[in-house]
């Protein structure tokens, strides 16, 4: 099988690491060779963060490069725009419809781009969800990332049961139920 490339992008602190671990977990359980690459350290402090997940028969490099991603999962609109060119033509773009102003926007040095999702839809298959609101409705704002993962999972080759099993094995025991419910919310969106 040709190596498949997935990217998760967002703002430091949004939980990209947990999401990538679930992704890595499901690919391992399906018997693929998997490589993941993450960002730690200073970049995690509210900066733009990116995680790469690659799987296939034999994976060499751990990063995904421009024009190579099959699926891009963006936890924030501006980050979707920043990394969209990593997608292949007609790649799948999953966007959490949330706006977090970066410091240059806060200080007035730059403007937050308008109509991001509409513009990206011209070049890519875009699926968006306001996962923040959905998560708040569920009573736990933190699980929005798993809702977004659920939506992305619809466009990947694993069954709902496989996903739920990996979530159970990956998240902290106390949060298994809420994370499973969040995943289903996104999967059935």
């Amino acid at each position, binding site marked *: 099988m040709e190596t498949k490339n997935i990217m998760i992008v967002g703002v430091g602190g949004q939980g990209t690491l947990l999401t990538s671990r679930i992704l890595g977990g499901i690919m391992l359980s399906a018997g693929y060779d998997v490589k993941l690459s993450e960002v730690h350290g*200073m970049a995690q402090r509210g900066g733009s963060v990116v995680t790469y997940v690659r799987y296939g028969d034999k994976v060499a490099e751990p990063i995904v490069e421009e024009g190579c991603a099959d699926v891009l999962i963006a936890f924030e609109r501006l980050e979707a*725009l*920043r990394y969209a060119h990593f997608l292949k033509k007609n790649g799948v773009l999953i966007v959490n419809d949330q706006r977090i102003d970066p*410091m*240059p926007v806060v200080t007035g*040095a730059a403007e937050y781009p308008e109509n991001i999702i509409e513009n990206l839809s011209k070049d890519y298959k875009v699926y968006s969800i306001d996962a923040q609101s959905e998560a708040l409705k569920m009573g736990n704002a933190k699980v929005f990332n798993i809702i977004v993962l659920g939506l992305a999972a619809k466009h990947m080759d694993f069954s709902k049961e496989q996903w739920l099993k990996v979530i159970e094995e990956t998240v902290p025991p106390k949060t298994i139920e809420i994370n499973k419910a969040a995943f289903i919310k996104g999967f059935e969106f």
Partner: protein
Amino acid sequence: MLGNAAIARGAYEAGVKVSAAYPGTPSTEISENLVNYKEIYCEWSPNEKVACEVAIGASMAGVRSMCSMKHVGLNVASDPLYSVSYIGVNGGMVLVVADDPGLYSSQNEQDTRMIGRASMVPVIEPSDSQEAKDYIKYAFELSEKYDTPVIMRTTTRLGHSQGLVTLEERQEIPDKPYEKNIQKNVMMPGMAKKRHVFVEERLKKMAEDGASMPINRIEWGDKKIGFITSGIAYQYVKEVCPDASVLKLGLLNPLPKTMIADFAKEIETLYIFEELEPVIEEQVRAMGIKCIGKEAFTIQGEYSANMLRKVLKGSEPETKAAEVPARPPILCPGCPHRSVYTALKNLKIHAAGDIGCYTLGAVAPLNVVDTAVCMGSSISTLHGMEKAKGKDYVKNWVAVIGDSTFLHTGVNSLMNMVYNKATGTVMILDNSTTGMTGHQDHAATGKTLMGEPTYAIDIYNLCKSMGIEHVVEVSSFDQVALTKAIKEETARDEVSVIICQAPCALLKGQKFPNVCKPLPEKCKKCGACLKPGCPALTKNADGTVSIDVTMCNGCGLCKQMCKFDAIECVER
């Protein structure tokens, strides 16, 4: 398994008994994983020099030992490194040193292989998680066989990537007997002269043996183009040219020169593909071998498969990046540093900065920090300024340094200020942890890496014991107290210390019962609350503000900034 977790696993399997480290991205997770193996004693040392010396002592005592650090940490540890190169080992000793091409979280892009060459210490480099585990085990074998410390060099991309790893059992290595041997273990000129001869011989022997080491291998393929490469760069070569001939080097110092010559003479066009400095390339050229290296590939930053594709095939990715506002890292909502910097900014005080999250005080909107050199440098740079320009010059300056950085090397600089009769105010930003690297304990937190309660060094009394009369403690969130302390202490003609206390907002086990709430009816739309740049606050279209309840932890800084009581702090 994360590369860094694989290194820890490899150390465990190699029978390591002692490990010491100071946290530093991208090496921190090595120790954080080692602590899961109960057979290994592991510690956070106050700095990398101490960590290296702990490992040297353990090796002298006859057990396998290691220390780990980021690339710049090796500068701190280079004093013992250059000596232990001469001394060699009893039990095997490995230094894991993590370089940061692309500067994800560092102040420079130095190449550890150069330090390996300068200190005449062998350097090995793995290219994925499996090799990270296998190579560190091999490093201990090399260390004991050749009587040398060994550096295992990694990079951010290797340490922070995950790949499949096959686990093995731990080897129990019997302790080697300790024998007094001052000719080997005491580096005085007479002894060191003889050891220098040994060190040169050792490197020569290793270079000769390199061809038979399993970590150096030739993968023959198409001989029209060939690559000499190592580490993560090897993966990019395999991605772009799976059929090319490759000499994959695991031993980077000394280079296996006969192996290189044998490989090169079969290859039509030879590329040297190595991140950072042209360490392999310059040595290959010195052998009279034609090759393509840094004229095609940059010295700066991280490599990628696309970069290699571009050089070999002239192909650019079809898609183009959109122009979007940057998103640089920022201080977290509820970060105590933001509050301290707000007080300094209001008083128009310059800060000599240091290494930690608080270096972010250099950029907008705070713009308080003027300098950042290296760990512990804030205090001594302030001192240098005072000696250059006189007492009055530093009255609108302070040094800012975190608690962990203060104990790392800042404490030496403070001693220097006292000794040399300095004027100047040092602000220790005590957030009870090593923040930026992800919350590691240190000598003042009262807990060891292995989770045991321990004596917590009292920073206040440490400063007092140096003879500093004015040491004041304030809450980092109390703007009134901060302002008063900064005004009073910077006015003095002597050394003074302000310890600003409040735990890091991300430190576990804290409860944040309160949350800040805007009162739009009282709001005068002046924007004062927005000035500190808390990400929980956003300006509404009508000029009032919103506060994101999921981000706010009720620190109250915005409330203190508001002169019109238009923000209240309420129970969540």
